[in-house]
C-alpha cells in the first residue's frame, strides 16, 4: 500500500459527504433520527440501505436517545457503528453519550453543529458541541466538506484503535457545511478498506457474546470505578498522539493532510496567532494573507481536536507569541470568555504572559465575516504592541 487511487470527484453537500464517508467505512449497525440540519444524512443512508449500497443494519429509531443506545450496544457486541445528530438531538442523548464513552464503545458520530434549545432557534453555532464537552468523547471539528469525509474515515481508525476504544464526534458547522456543496473526492471503498485494515491486526477488544459469561457495564465499585475512569482519562491522553499519527498515515496514503490535532497556518514566524475552528477558519486564512501584506505577522491555529484538548501542541506553537485572539462560536456560561478561550487561558502558565483576547461571533447563523476577522487581527496586533485592549468582545453586539 503506497497510495490510494484517485477517487471520484462530485459536487455534494457536507451532509451527503457525511453519508458517503460513513458508508465507505462499512458500518454494520447505523441508527439515526432526523433533525435539521442533519436530516439529509439519515435520508441518504436510508437510501443507500434501500439500494443495497450500504450493507449494514439501519435502525429507524423513535428518538436520539435510542439512536445512541442502539449503536452503543451494537458496538459493545462488536459491530462497527455510525450515527449522526445535531443540537436538540445531541442534548437529548446526553445520558447515553456518557454511557457510550464509559463503556469505551468506539462509536463514530457526526454532529452538525447548531444552537442548543436554551432559546429556540434553527441556526448554526457550536453550542451543542460545547454542551457535550464533559461526556468523555473525543471531539473533532472540521472545516470543509472534504475534511468531513476524510475525518470520518480517520475517526474509525482512531476510535477502534485498541489503545483508544473511545467514541468520536465529528463536528461541522451546521447550515454552513451541512448545505454547502463543494467538489469532494470520494475515495474508492477498497482504499478505505486498506486504510482501515491495520485495525484488524490489533488484539480484539472485549465483546459481549451470548453463551459466554461476561457482563458489560458492571458496577464499578470504589477502586474499580476509579480505575475505569483513570483508564478512560489515560486513553484520552493517548488520543492526542494518535490523531497526529493517523493524520500522517492518511495523508501518506490519500494525499491529504490536516495537521492532526491542530492545523497551523503561517504561525512559524508569527507574532500573533488567531485560534479558531470549523468553517470560519478559511476566511481567517484569507484575511491573514491580506494582513501579512500589510506587515502584520499573524498566523492561525485551527483547532481540530477539542476533546481531548491539545494542550501540548498549543503550548508548542503559542509559547512566546506576543498576543493571541480566540474566536468562539459559542458561549461558556458563567465565564466572560468564550469556551475555547477560557480553556486556552488554562494553559497560560505554560504559554506565558501574552494577552489573550476573546471574541464571540457567528452565533445563530450570523456570519464571521472578513471585516470581523480584520478587526480581530488589528486588535490583537495592537494588544501585542502593549496597547490597552478589551478582553472580551461580542462582535455582533458592537455592530
Amino acid at each position, binding site marked *: 500500500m503506497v497510495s490510494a487511487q484517485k477517487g471520484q470527484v462530485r459536487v455534494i453537500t457536507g451532509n451527503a459527504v457525511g453519508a458517503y464517508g460513513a458508508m465507505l467505512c462499512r458500518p454494520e449497525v447505523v441508527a439515526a433520527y432526523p433533525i435539521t440540519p442533519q436530516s439529509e444524512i439519515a435520508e441518504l443512508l436510508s437510501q443507500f440501505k434501500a439500494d443495497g449500497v450500504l450493507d449494514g443494519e439501519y435502525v429507524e429509531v423513535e428518538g436520539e436517545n435510542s439512536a445512541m443506545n442502539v449503536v452503543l450496544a451494537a458496538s459493545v457486541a462488536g459491530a462497527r457503528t455510525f450515527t449522526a445528530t445535531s443540537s436538540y438531538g445531541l442534548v437529548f442523548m446526553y445520558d447515553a453519550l456518557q454511557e457510550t464513552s*464509559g*463503556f*469505551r464503545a468506539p462509536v463514530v458520530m457526526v454532529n452538525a453543529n447548531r444552537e442548543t434549545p436554551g432559546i429556540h432557534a434553527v441556526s448554526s453555532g457550536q453550542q451543542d458541541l460545547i454542551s457535550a464537552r464533559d461526556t468523555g468523547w473525543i471531539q473533532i471539528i472540521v472545516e470543509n466538506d472534504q475534511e468531513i469525509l476524510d475525518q470520518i474515515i480517520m475517526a474509525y481508525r482512531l476510535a477502534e484503535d485498541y489503545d483508544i476504544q473511545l467514541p468520536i464526534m465529528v463536528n461541522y458547522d451546521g447550515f454552513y457545511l451541512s448545505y454547502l456543496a463543494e467538489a469532494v473526492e470520494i475515495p474508492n471503498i477498497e482504499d478505505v478498506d486498506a486504510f482501515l485494515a491495520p485495525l484488524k491486526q490489533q488484539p480484539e477488544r*472485549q465483546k459481549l457474546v451470548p453463551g459466554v*459469561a461476561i*457482563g458489560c457495564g458492571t*458496577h464499578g465499585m470504589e*477502586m474499580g470505578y476509579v480505575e*475505569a475512569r*483513570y483508564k478512560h482519562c489515560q486513553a484520552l491522553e493517548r488520543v492526542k498522539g494518535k490523531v497526529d499519527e493517523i493524520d500522517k498515515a492518511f495523508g501518506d496514503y490519500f494525499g491529504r493532510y490536516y495537521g492532526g490535532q491542530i492545523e497551523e497556518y503561517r504561525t512559524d514566524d508569527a507574532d500573533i496567532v488567531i485560534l479558531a475552528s470549523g468553517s470560519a477558519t478559511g476566511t481567517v486564512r484569507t484575511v491573514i494573507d491580506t494582513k501579512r501584506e500589510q506587515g502584520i505577522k499573524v498566523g492561525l491555529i485551527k483547532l481540530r481536536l477539542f476533546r481531548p484538548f491539545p494542550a501540548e501542541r498549543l503550548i508548542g506553537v503559542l509559547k512566546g507569541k506576543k498576543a493571541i485572539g480566540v474566536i468562539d462560536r459559542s458561549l461558556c456560561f458563567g465565564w466572560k470568555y468564550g469556551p475555547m478561550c477560557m480553556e486556552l487561558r488554562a494553559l497560560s502558565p505554560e504559554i506565558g504572559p501574552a494577552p489573550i483576547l476573546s471574541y464571540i461571533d457567528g452565533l445563530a447563523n450570523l456570519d464571521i465575516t472578513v471585516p470581523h476577522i480584520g478587526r480581530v487581527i488589528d486588535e490583537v496586533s495592537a494588544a501585542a504592541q502593549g496597547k490597552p485592549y478589551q478582553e472580551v468582545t461580542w462582535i455582533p453586539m458592537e455592530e
Partner: protein
Amino acid sequence: MVIKHKNIFKTESAWSNADEKLLCLDTGSWRTERPVVDKEKCNYCGLCALYCPPQCMKDMGDHYEVDLAYCKGCGICATECPLKAITMVPEGEFADG
C-alpha cells in the same frame, strides 16, 4: 506519577466476568426459621423446589432437602407444599446443632 493501584479489570472498561467463581452472599445467615422436610410425607412432586426463590431445594432422588447455605427461610416451600410435608422451625432450636 507513582501508580500503586493494581489493575482490577483486564479490560479497558468495567466488565464483570463469571468465568471465575461467582460472587455469593451468606444468605443462609438471614434465616430465622428453617424448613424441615418430612421425607415420609414428601411425594417428590418438586413443587417446593420449583417455587423456592433461591432454588435451593436439593433433589435427593426421592425427596427434596434444603441447602442451608442459601435458604433464606422465607417459608414459601412450607406454604406451597401440597402435602404439608415441610415445617418451618425457628433457628434458635438448632443453635448449637
